[in-house]
């Protein structure tokens, strides 16, 4: 199943390689991976979309935590979250077709960000489905180029990121943390 992880990592050289290498060598396939800055200096945020079976999800999370530069791993798939993708689409547009294309842009709540005599650049944000829908509709006019960012994700609600953890087993939380157990695996 398609699973989305939001991973906070230290903003250091090589961290992207470490994450990508881990996913590759454990035999998982990356559907998309985006990286960018966060509200905290020195911390980057990755959104990784993987197509994996249920049993692998906990293992991927545990393996990501084994990377020293990984600060936090949240599997946002099961929780209410906002998923967004951004695309820029250059579509062929003549004087005759431009009007029809602009109408489509309106319907999809996209924007035209560049106009030239024989093409338009359309910018759209939304779920992958929505973008796929627009692309489908634009094909008849001729899609010349397309650039997509891949998915970014964020859980809804104020503290979702803080309580985001899927532990192996269930924790009752009755007892203080155990100093004997080290988790730097």
């Amino acid at each position, binding site marked *: 199943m398609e699973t989305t992880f939001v991973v906070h990592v230290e903003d250091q050289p090589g961290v992207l390689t470490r994450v990508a290498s881990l996913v590759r060598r454990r035999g998982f396939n990356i559907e998309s991976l985006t990286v960018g800055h966060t509200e905290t200096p020195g911390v980057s945020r990755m959104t990784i979309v993987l197509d994996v079976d249920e049993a692998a999800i906990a293992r991927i999370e*545990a393996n990501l935590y084994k990377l020293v530069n990984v600060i936090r791993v949240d599997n946002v798939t099961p929780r209410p979250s906002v998923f967004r993708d951004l695309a820029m689409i250059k579509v062929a547009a003549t004087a005759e077709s431009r009007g029809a294309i602009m109408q489509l842009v309106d319907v999809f709540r996209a924007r035209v960000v560049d106009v030239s005599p024989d093409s338009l650049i359309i910018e759209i944000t939304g779920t992958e489905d929505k973008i796929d829908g627009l692309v489908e509709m634009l094909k008849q006019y001729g899609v010349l180029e397309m650039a997509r960012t891949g998915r970014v994700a964020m859980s809804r609600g104020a503290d979702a990121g803080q309580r985001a953890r899927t532990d192996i087993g269930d924790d009752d939380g009755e007892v203080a943390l*155990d100093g004997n157990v080290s988790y730097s*695996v």
Partner: protein
Amino acid sequence: MREGVTDIFGYPGGAILPAYDALLDYPIRHILARHEQGATHMADGYARATGKVGVAVATSGPGATNMVTGMATAMMDSSPIVCITGQVGSRLIGSDAFQETDITGVTLPVTKHNYLVRRAEDVAPAVREAFYLARTGRPGPVLIDITKDAQQASCTFDWDAAAPKPHGRPPTPPQLTEHRRALELINAAERPLILAGHGILIGNAMAQVRELADRAQIPVAMTLLGIGAFPASHPLNLGMMGMHGEAWVNTAIQQADLLIALGMRFDDRVTGNLKTYAQNAKKIHIEIDPAEINKNVTVDVGIVGDVRGVLDRLLPSIAPGDRRAWLDSIDALKGHSAVRDIKNLPDEGHLYAAHVIHDLWHATNGKALVVTDVGQHQMWEAQYYHHDVPRSLITSGGLGTMGFALPAAIGAKVARPRADVWVVVGDGGFQMTMAELATIVQENLDINIAIINNGYLGMVRQWQEFFYERRYSATPLLSPDFVKIAQAYGIKAQSVTKRADVVPAVKAARAERQAVLLDFVVEQEDTVYPMVPAGADLDQMIRRPDPTPLADTGDEIGRASADPTSPADQSSGGVEVSPKRDQFGRASADPLAETGADV
């Protein structure tokens, strides 16, 4: 120094010259290896012998790449080592400079973590964190790659400020529900079995495991790296499990109703076919690395934590058990025991590796620190040398690195100078790293070397015998005269070809206060039994032929044909294969004769 390092293993070169220059001013013993791979195995052996972090040092480029095998070995077997490599000057990085290699890139998958340090002020934090990472949690290798200019520059040394920051997975609260369920399963089980792994040794949980076994009367099976975690002489010890584990152990696993896996990872060499593995058993997995739980085997209860801590919490609630019926039924499976096999092997004629290991065990009072290589001799050692003491067997399990034994033994001897260190190594693996004999002499180390010399890459030959119709492709092995090789290094050596000479040779070697090499020329086409073919069901073992195991010494073709009506085989559903070449008319042809070897 500040990390308590007293010994390091290494090989100098251009990019690490500044560090080596500084080394002269510190009271650290540097052991010069003959190859950087050897240095990493030495650090590994040092770490496994003591639990302390082993340190290996090399230069950039080829020095660094030569360390990759050693790091991968340490990674697979969770051994804490820190490797320090020189790197070209930071301004040259990326320019394909002389002896430049992107070693942090190369070693990404085979290290727990690695650092590229470009500035002097970053050295101390990297070193502190590296040692911390190497020894905590699930231990492993950490690489620090330091540019030459960072080694040359000076900075204010602030050790306290360089303390490692906490990182990684947020601590899990004790999983009380899981603990409760584990206790219910253990106390209710009728046929429980403890699977004892390397994590017990790493986490120093031997006493806890023994307490659990004794109180609840639960038999203990060990992984290869778990050997020593539970005394071999203990009545509840079953021995090694897995591909070359004894038949009763694997059969017991398949019959058990509860497996308690402690600090092990259900390696494919341990489980055989996962689809049929221990179908009757509930499974409890206590393991420090969360990524191991439910990786290969889906478990009913998974507890993340070090074995010692978890068992300390569980033990007060473990009910004393009486599992006589279960223990008796396992005893009944032991018909085909290793002891019987040894007794049945002829003392005349060819020398058998099983005899050598068995006699070595006797002659060293079972108290040697044995370092094995990889292959048949490794399995025979695990079967016939009975280890009662923790950290008395060091071997490359996960990666299966041939050439590991000799350098690892050097590290072990440096770490524990009073230990009776024995290298048990095949003729193939020995030749991979035998240059380290010079290190032994230069460092004046009293290490004894037992070469199990069968003129073949024996384990590969065994697979060819079973699975490739005895087409011995590239397994006959020409070796030099090991006695002369040793003598050339100034090491005393002796060739042993008869059973009667084994014990005297071992005793003589022990009496020497310097290294001795014994070349045991053993039966060429001997086979490790039993064997679970890769991917086969765990109880579908290729069994020792019965009733005349391995009797054929090569002159009497077909004498050792298998007896398919053997009662022991019927009892455990084993598959029997004749070990000898009797199905081919030209069986008497000696493959070595064709290569011109004279063994």
